[in-house]
């Protein structure tokens, strides 16, 4: 691929508007495909209820109520699982030929992927808000500062956005939407479960505990818990942000490059 000055000029001038167009298109698709909305809202809400009531009594979380422990973890888990939709959506566009249309238009190259992720992030804001609402109904309470209460869901959304870029790189590299879905869950499941999302990592065998302690999911969830519970959050937050920056540094260029080299 040859990158010309012309291409860079098109990018700079049209990227914001074009991203907005693609965002609009994807939001309409969400509204009109109820099954997508069901997947992204009912399932996380169901997770909150199931874990709170089924495992709630069995998992030792010390002085902290299990629901207070659980909710930040479930938020992170939901945005992670939700990020798979970025890759699925892009893979659908590739197979349907829609990408070919976009790529022959004089539009910004980055808009298709970025517009997709912006829409998925919008959906995440909605999902996180809904889950917080359900959480409050079944007893979740903030124990920290107001700033912490506002920052907590924000960290979740940022975390989800980061993983959307990994998903985008997958979605633009596979030939079918189903493959994108499977290729994401294969590593997302262990990543989510080998972390502090559902249980304190001290309850795991030693070797697993080491893995879990260093997971970006654990750092992020611990930071969110710190913010929500009013306990220490700076150290995990710095780790979490460093992980996110690292992932973005690798996967933003990778996703854009994969998108450009679709043939």
């Amino acid at each position, binding site marked *: *691929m*040859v990158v*010309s000055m*012309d*291409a860079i*000029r*098109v990018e700079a001038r*049209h990227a914001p*508007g*074009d991203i907005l*167009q693609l965002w*609009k*298109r994807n939001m*309409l*698709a969400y509204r*009109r*495909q109820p099954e997508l909305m069901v997947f992204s809202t009912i399932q996380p809400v169901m997770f909150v209820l199931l874990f709170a009531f089924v495992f709630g009594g069995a998992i030792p979380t010390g002085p902290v109520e299990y629901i207070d422990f659980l909710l930040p973890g479930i938020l992170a888990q939901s945005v992670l699982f939700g990020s798979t939709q970025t890759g699925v959506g892009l893979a659908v566009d590739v197979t*349907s*030929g*829609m990408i*070919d*249309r*976009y*790529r*022959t*238009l*004089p*539009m910004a190259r980055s*808009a298709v992927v970025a517009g997709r992720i912006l829409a998925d992030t919008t959906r995440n804001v909605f999902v996180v808000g809904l889950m917080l609402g359900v959480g409050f109904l079944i007893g979740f309470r903030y124990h920290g500062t107001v700033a912490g209460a506002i920052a907590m869901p924000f960290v979740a959304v940022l975390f989800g956005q980061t993983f959307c870029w990994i998903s985008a790189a997958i979605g633009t590299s596979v030939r079918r939407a189903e493959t994108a879905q499977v290729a994401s869950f294969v590593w997302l499941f262990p990543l989510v479960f080998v972390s502090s999302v559902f249980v304190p990592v001290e309850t795991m065998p030693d070797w697993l505990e080491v893995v879990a302690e260093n997971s970006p999911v654990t750092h992020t969830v611990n930071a969110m818990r710190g913010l929500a519970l009013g306990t220490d959050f700076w150290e995990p937050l710095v780790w979490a942000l460093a992980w996110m920056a690292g992932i973005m540094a690798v996967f933003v260029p990778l996703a854009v490059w994969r998108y450009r080299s679709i*043939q």
Partner: protein
Amino acid sequence: MEQGHNGSSPIVVVRDVHKSFGDVHALAGVSLEIERGTVLGLLGPNGAGKTTLVRVLTTLLDPDEGSAAVAGFDVRRERTRVRPLIGLAGQSAAVDDTLTGRENLEMVANLYHMGRAAAASRAGELLARFDLVDAAERQARTYSGGMRRRLDLAASLVADPEVLFLDEPTTGLDPQARLELWAVIRELVATGTTVLLTTQYLEEADQLADEIVVIDHGRIIAQGTAAELKARSGGEHLTVRVSDLAALAQVRDVLEAEGDGPPTVDEATGTVSVAVSNGPTRLAGVVRRLDEAEVAIADIGLRQPTLDEVFLSLTGHRAESEPVDAPAGAV
């Protein structure tokens, strides 16, 4: 719009383009030119390399070797100059199923950065022109195959392209929808649009194209007007079908006498056919002779050679690369 050069030279120039996918040589040295305001028909069987060439010319695919230019702009180095000048209706209709017809067109217009009001009026204009007004507010998922094709074609025309690429525009359409689409394409050509059209049907190329390029296995194997190509494959074919298979030998003798080459006999369907020039006169002669010989004719007619027959005579093998015996009816 800026132009690479003046209007009299070819608007599309392809020079010795090669493209391989692994060890498949999809394009093995293709060169061609399209004059401004004309229609080039790219005719070839499955896997010939038609779509690959269209993708190279529409900036979707970089050639391994060789060069291609649209309106004087190189499709690889100056793709941002090429894109505003072209429209593509690909082999599978690129319409967004969850958007309505109108939203599809408005989105494309917005991505051409036309401005909101201009985008809305352009969408309305195209919906009217492609007979989609009644379906304009319905999601494209509810459209029929023909409607999707029309919407796709409309989307490729949003910015009034100078060169339009149509990759098998009528494949999968019923005869009525095909005729309608042909009429639309003719209208476009009448307004001065240059068109590259790929097809598997000689008849379609014959109907629409000024010049036909036949490709096979990534190479150009023939080039000319429809009339020239047909002449090279023995022109029209005269076919006779009988219900009494015992009469086949007699029919064969008559066609041998009247036709321009050795007839081909198909015992399974009871038909004999032969290449003829001056078809109508020969047809009368054949009818008279068979009548004299008291052979009952089930069906008789003249028809244009199919892509398969053109292929057979140009290459000695059939369009589908299946093994064939020595071509009996070849010229």
